[in-house]
Structure formats: C-alpha cells, structure tokens
C-alpha cells in the first residue's frame, strides 16, 4: 500500500505549517519560507550523531537511543561511527587528559556544520573527578553547544538537551 507522493507532500507541508503556527499553510500544497529557515528546519531534524562514549553515561545514552525513549522521534536516530559523516558530536562520559587529544582530533575531522553536546556532568565540568587524570570540562578543548547536566542525566534530560540543540540550530545563521 504505497502512499501517493501527493499525500506525503501534504503531510510534510502540514508538519511545517503546524510548526510555523500557520494552519492556512496546511494542506494547501505550497508554503512560503526563507531559504535559511527551511535549511535550518531540515538540518535540525536530520542530525547524524557521533557518540563518543567513554563511561557510564553511555548507558543513559543507549536508553535514550533505544525504543522506549526513541531518539529517532527527534530525527537524531542515526549514529555514524565515522566523524566525517556526523553532524553532532555527543561526548558521553569522563574525558581523561590522555584521551583529550583523541577527542580533539575526532572533532576536527567532522565536516561543517557541526555541533557538540556535552553529555553528563563529567564532560561539562569534570564532575567529581577533580583529580590529576581528568579534563575539567571538554569546553577547555573544543567548543560546546549544549551542556546536559546529570550524573548520569536521565533520558528526559537528554531529550530536553537535544530539543534545545535543535532550537539553536533552527535559530542560528545557516552556512551553506
């Protein structure tokens, strides 16, 4: 039972019209927008992530990604294990000084536009690992867009962080 192309197009316009708060746009078969906004809308709903998972936060990351919380509902369900194919770097877990150059290299290998999420308190500030081994916040090494606190953060917090990142992507200047 293949959906007709027309129906699919209509569903797409409906979704965009609803989001722009303009019901008249819905089901009309056309819409007006700025190219920059349309690109932002496309980018925020097709995030390919690179999960840089080093510690226990990875469990919450997996819980968020799996079917119960289902990160794919937000268009970010596709992990890529090559930084060259990823849009957003999820740094999930404690980063040691020994690991820091590796993280920086992974970040540098990503293509623009790219974003970084600091997942969990260790990546935000070092957390309670205030010691000789641990980087005191990954923002001392690479730029961070969204900080998700928690030790570890619950999936709801992760999804909240993701939605804030999407908001940021939508409202930033689009390079293309």
């Amino acid at each position, binding site marked *: 039972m293949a959906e007709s192309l027309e129906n699919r197009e209509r569903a797409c316009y409906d979704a965009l019209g609803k989001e722009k708060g303009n019901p008249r746009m819905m089901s009309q078969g056309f819409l007006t927008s700025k190219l920059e906004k349309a690109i932002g809308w496309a980018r925020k709903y097709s995030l390919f992530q690179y999960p840089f998972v080093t510690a226990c936060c990875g469990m919450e990351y997996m819980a968020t990604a799996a079917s119960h919380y289902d990160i794919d509902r937000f268009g970010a369900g596709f992990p890529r294990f090559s930084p060259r194919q990823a849009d957003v770097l999820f740094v999930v877990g404690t980063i040691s*000084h*020994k690991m*820091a*150059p590796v993280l920086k290299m992974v970040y540098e290998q990503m293509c623009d536009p790219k974003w970084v999420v600091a997942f969990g308190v260790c990546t935000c500030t070092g957390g309670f690992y205030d010691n*000789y081994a641990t*980087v*005191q916040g990954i923002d001392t*090494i690479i730029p961070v867009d969204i900080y998700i606190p928690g030790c570890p953060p619950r999936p709801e917090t992760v999804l909240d962080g993701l939605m804030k990142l999407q908001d940021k992507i939508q409202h930033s200047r689009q390079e293309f």
Partner: protein
Amino acid sequence: MPEPSVTLRKIREQFGESIIETHSRLGEDTVIIQPQVLVPVSTFLKGDPDLDYNFLMDLTAVDYLDLKKKPRFEVVYHFFSLAKKHRVRIKVPAEAKNPEVDSIVSLWAGADWYEREVWDMFGIKFRGHPNLKRILMYEEFQGHPLRKDYPIQKRQPLIGPGAGS
C-alpha cells in the same frame, strides 16, 4: 590461639629467618618478608603441592609517607589457589629512595600489567620486568600520582589550558 594455617606453617619452616612478621585475622593470612626472598617465596607458594597458589589475584602498593612508617613503601601481593581454595597476602617493604623489588612476571604472566600499574602510580621499579613503562598515564606525565607527596592540585594536561607548563 587457633592452629596456624598450612600456608603460614610451611612458609615459616622454609623461610623462617627471612620473615619480618606474620599475622592471621578473620581467616586471612599475611606474611611480611624480606625483599631478597620474594622470588624464592613466590616460587615456593606456586610450586608446593600443598599450597598450589596458581592465581595472582592482585598486586598493588601502599605509600606510608603520612603514617611515618619505615621503609616508606610496601608492595602487596594477593595469591589464591583455585584447587585448595585458600589465600595469602604477601607484603614486601621498599625504600623511599629508588624503591625497587624483584619482578614476578616469570612466575605469573598476569603480574605484567599490575607491575606496570604500580610503577606508573607509585614509582616502584620491578627488577627484571620485560616492559616496565607507564600503563595508565601518558608518557609525558611527570611523577607518580598515587604517591602521598604528589600535589593534589597538580595538573599536567596534554592539550588545552596549562598544557606544556
């Protein structure tokens, strides 16, 4: 006084004059020995059919700097016999200046990474180790972080703020 375990009895018989101290509490036997008999004692523990300590469970060290104990370091070995189901803890003192004890990698291959960890964290050398280099910290790291005189706030990042200083 309960009967001493077979391990304590046999070690005392074999190495009586090289034993600094033994104690036994809640079924746990501890033997503190002179550093020079570490390899013979280990060989005996592993080879004697009544003891049969075929498993090195743990190898670590203690820095007694703040407790003013002499000598400053102790290397601690935990052995277990899978067949006899008994355990023993062996302690070997090491001097503050250039601490060094014999390696037991030739007896238990599993001692390899343990000894590297103790070298990395405490700076205790293992004579005869095949590849004694840092295992957890990076090669550029200065000092040994689990020593009690390592400054608690000292940071040695490879990149980022404070790197290379």
